[in-house]
């Protein structure tokens, strides 16, 4: 049980420091209130002014991002961003990190990460239609990491599967730097009828504030504060800051909320998820956005534990809860609707014209603060920045050591980051809702838009190794790789969401990485015309002061205007011609083969040119428009050899390829490349359009996988190569 200190005791004992408020911030609160804050109020400010809620360290950097496009119906600032996709429909998407909870309690941490992002989507009025994830773990060389991987996957799967939302794509990488800081980012995509779009706003004097969904317990108290602190050996694992998920409750809550939105739009003023910092953030944000205040009676909050104090009620992050603002006089309608779904709906307060945020508990007023102070007046910091030493070095590119090309190739295919992820994605229901056209394991997942001839392509991409060697170019590459995946599937990029996973911004070197990465990403967003419509920031991913590699995750969605543009990665017919678009160089620093041979990446990242990237993407898009390619695949980790192998394995067809390159360059990770296959009848038209941007390197073969170089060849049976690639991760997970 928590003891509520008096205002004087809080100040004397510095309690606010434990809660993450600095001395200056506490003084600012005192100034705003014109008195010392009481226990509850101190808690409200600590949560609302945490990095997780207020973006106080990242706000200036996020301003670099393009947030406009012809299609934007809602940019950042609501539950999720919204983009018009025609025919009266819009796509809604957002990604969110749940790194800290997943690191300490992987099953519930991952599950509630999914639950939270799903609520953000349906709070906008959209039906969630797809989930993706981006997972980064330590090496699979110890039992603890294997357990973490297994439980994270189980948590994601159990939540999404039960909700009936297909998990259609994602990425999983393994690197020692993530051993104590798992990165778990979840992205949800929803479809909205434009007329149903909602806002999280509580307007109108006297309108009712409704609490709907699960009861409040003591789980996840201080979750937002916890997410804004680092890990170390000395600290206990903070398991109590992790919430417990109930996907069945959320499914019922979702159906009730969607019915309310679709059928009772006239009485619903606003709706918002109770996510980070629970009841305080949802209610204060809804009031502040509308320019209204609010009075809440905390005795009315449904509770599943006894003796909870206001601080606990306001900061609990119990899951499966939403806050509604409903027009006065329509209370019974709302209560009857939620009762139908066996979900609770309780009026806990009302909107007030004065912009004060007032809480009552057991007949006493326990908080009285200006609502805008909580939501809009958190301090914003530009932290000192310093370029890390490693980024100042000018180095040569790494030169792989290769005795036998076949052996090196197989070893690379068996790297967990490269190997097939079927052992992971087969634990997710990828097909429920019967819209999944391209299932996990491709460049992008594709779902059809039922009732139209259109589709949506979606992908998540992060490349922590490139980011570590050059956060600026790495930021550009992260965006480019996502766009390359979208374009290769026949879609046009619409926009992105992101999760900025970094170390502590108070470390000048980390802040430098954050500045450079966001700068690179922002430039690439401009190049591809993709606004940032939503996202989150996860800082303080450190263990014993060792930050993770900078890991901004890009979740991109593209529109396939007509499903005859749909293009897949698999080779289609023996005898088709294989072309590589883009040139190949000795680009090995940060590559999979460097990591495989040196156990880590180092050196100066290779060159990258956004304009070349855009040209190649435009070319592939034009080729798809003209129906000149039978397959298209972007080249990424493992380079040309691995890219060819992936298209081969997907189509169960081999290759006979000859390249005029040094043998090791088959594994170089030069950016801005695609491999495409072309039927012989389309050769002339293809070459006329592609010109010297594409080179013919061989043909699709039956059951032999052969790539000849200036040195040794890769030459083996397709079945052997595929077996190694397909089973390697499952072996390593056991």
């Amino acid at each position, binding site marked *: 049980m928590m003891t509520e200190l008096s205002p004087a005791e809080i100040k004397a004992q510095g309690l606010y420091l434990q809660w993450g408020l600095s001395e200056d911030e506490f003084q600012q609160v005192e100034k705003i209130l014109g008195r010392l804050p009481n226990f509850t109020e101190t808690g409200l400010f600590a949560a609302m002014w945490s990095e997780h809620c207020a973006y106080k360290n990242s706000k200036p950097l996020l301003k670099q991002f393009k947030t406009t496009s012809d299609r934007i119906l809602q940019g950042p600032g609501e539950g999720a961003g919204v983009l018009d996709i025609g025919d009266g429909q819009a796509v809604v998407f957002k990604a969110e990190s749940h790194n800290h909870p997943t690191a300490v309690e992987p099953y519930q941490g991952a599950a509630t990460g999914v639950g939270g992002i799903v609520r953000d989507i349906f709070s906008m009025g959209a039906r969630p239609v797809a989930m993706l994830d981006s997972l980064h773990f330590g090496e699979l060389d110890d039992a603890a990491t294997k357990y973490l991987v297994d439980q994270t996957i*189980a948590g994601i*799967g*159990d939540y999404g*599967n*039960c*909700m*009936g939302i297909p998990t259609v794509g994602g990425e999983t990488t393994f690197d020692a730097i993530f051993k104590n800081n798992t990165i778990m980012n979840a992205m949800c995509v929803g479809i909205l009828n434009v007329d149903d779009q909602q806002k999280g706003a509580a307007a109108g004097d006297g309108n009712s504030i409704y609490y709907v969904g699960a009861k409040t317990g003591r789980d996840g108290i201080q979750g937002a504060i916890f997410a804004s602190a680092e890990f170390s050996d000395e600290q206990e694992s903070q398991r109590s800051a992790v919430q417990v998920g*109930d*996907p*069945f*409750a959320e*499914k*019922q809550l979702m159906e009730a909320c969607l019915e309310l939105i679709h059928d009772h739009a006239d009485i619903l003023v606003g709706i918002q998820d109770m996510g980070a910092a629970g009841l305080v953030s949802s209610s204060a944000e809804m009031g502040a956005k509308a320019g209204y205040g609010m009075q809440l009676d905390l005795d009315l909050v449904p509770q599943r534990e006894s003796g909870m104090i206001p601080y606990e009620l306001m900061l609990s992050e119990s899951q499966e809860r939403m806050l509604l603002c409903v027009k006065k006089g329509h209370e019974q309608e709302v209560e009857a609707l939620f009762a139908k*779904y*066996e979900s609770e709906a309780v009026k806990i307060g009302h909107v007030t014209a004065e912009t004060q945020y007032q809480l009552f508990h057991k007949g006493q007023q326990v908080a009285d603060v200006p609502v805008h102070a909580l939501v809009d007046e958190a301090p914003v910091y530009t932290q000192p920045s310093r370029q890390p030493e490693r980024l100042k070095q000018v180095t040569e590119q790494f030169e792989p050591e290769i005795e036998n090309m076949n052996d090196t190739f197989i070893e690379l295919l068996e790297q967990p980051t490269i190997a097939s992820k*079927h052992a992971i*994605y*087969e*634990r*997710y*229901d*990828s*097909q*429920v*809702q*019967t*819209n*999944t*056209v391209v*299932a996990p394991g491709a460049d992008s997942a594709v779902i*059809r838009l*039922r009732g139209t001839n259109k589709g949506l392509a979606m992908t998540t991409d992060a490349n922590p190794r490139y980011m570590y060697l050059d956060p600026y170019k790495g930021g550009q590459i992260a965006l480019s790789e996502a766009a390359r995946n979208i374009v290769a599937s026949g879609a046009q990029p619409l926009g992105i969401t992101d999760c900025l996973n970094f170390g502590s911004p108070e470390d000048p070197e980390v802040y430098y990485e954050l500045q450079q990465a966001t700068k690179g990403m922002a430039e690439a967003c401009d190049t591809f015309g993709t606004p940032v419509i939503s996202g989150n920031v996860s800082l303080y991913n450190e263990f014993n002061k060792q930050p993770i590699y900078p890991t901004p995750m890009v979740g991109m969605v593209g529109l396939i205007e007509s*499903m005859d543009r749909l293009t897949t990665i698999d080779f289609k017919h023996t005898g088709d011609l294989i072309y590589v678009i883009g040139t190949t160089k000795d680009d090995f620093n940060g590559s999979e083969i460097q990591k495989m041979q040196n156990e880590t990446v180092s050196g100066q990242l290779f060159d990258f040119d956004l304009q070349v990237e855009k040209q190649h993407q435009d070319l592939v898009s034009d080729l798809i428009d003209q129906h000149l390619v039978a397959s298209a695949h972007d080249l990424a980790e493992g380079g040309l050899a691995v890219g060819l192998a992936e298209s081969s394995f997907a189509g169960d067809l081999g290759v006979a390829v000859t390249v005029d390159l040094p043998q090791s360059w088959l594994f170089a990770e030069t950016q801005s490349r695609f491999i495409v296959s072309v039927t012989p009848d389309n050769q002339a038209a293809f070459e006329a359009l592609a010109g010297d941007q594409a080179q013919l390197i061989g043909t699709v073969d039956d059951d032999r996988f052969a790539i000849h170089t200036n040195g040794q060849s890769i030459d083996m049976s397709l079945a052997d190569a595929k077996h190694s690639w397909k089973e390697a991760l499952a072996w390593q997970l056991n």
Partner: protein
Amino acid sequence: MKYAIIRFPGSNCDWDLFYVLRDVMAVTPEFVDYRETTLPDETAAVLVPGGFSYGDYLRSGAIARFSPIMAAVKAFADAGHPVIGICNGFQILTEAGLLPGALRKNSSLDFICKPQPLTVTNATTLFTHEFDAGETVMFPIAHGEGNYYCDDATLAQLKQNHQIAFTYQNNPNGSTADIAGVTNERGNVLGMMPHPERASEAILGGDDGQRLFASLIASVTAAAQ
């Protein structure tokens, strides 16, 4: 004629079945809430969809079988009308005693979602007569508790009565005798773990599932005449 799709709290393949019946098979589906006690007039067949009824935190289907609508479903089946349970629907029908056997956790203990080649073991049922006996069809599975179990005596009966409708070609979940779908003794109730409604449109990767629904529709149409 109506095709009644029973919706439990937590059903999530209800719309998938609805769309296949309405848009692909051009018949009239109707949702029936679990709190109802009667089926709609003109119900020709009952379909129990997949999902996670009541979250399935207990044994799958263990709570759903007590829903008010289940008495009507049982009476409908007892009268010889067709009832099909897919995935969670299969689990519910075994829990309700409408089908023999039980579904246990997959032998891997993990949820599995992937396309599965099946053999049509009995192509004479109400639900399978549009297939050829011994034919291979591709239906996806998506379940954590699809490991069919029955004792030896029951298995012998299933075989003798030709109640095994579908078998797995590479058993993904540990099911007894590779069983993927079974009927009751009378042959008018089918339960199966694989999802024919996910395999009924070429754009989703295959349309073998259409023939299961076509079999059902032809059966009820013939019965009505």
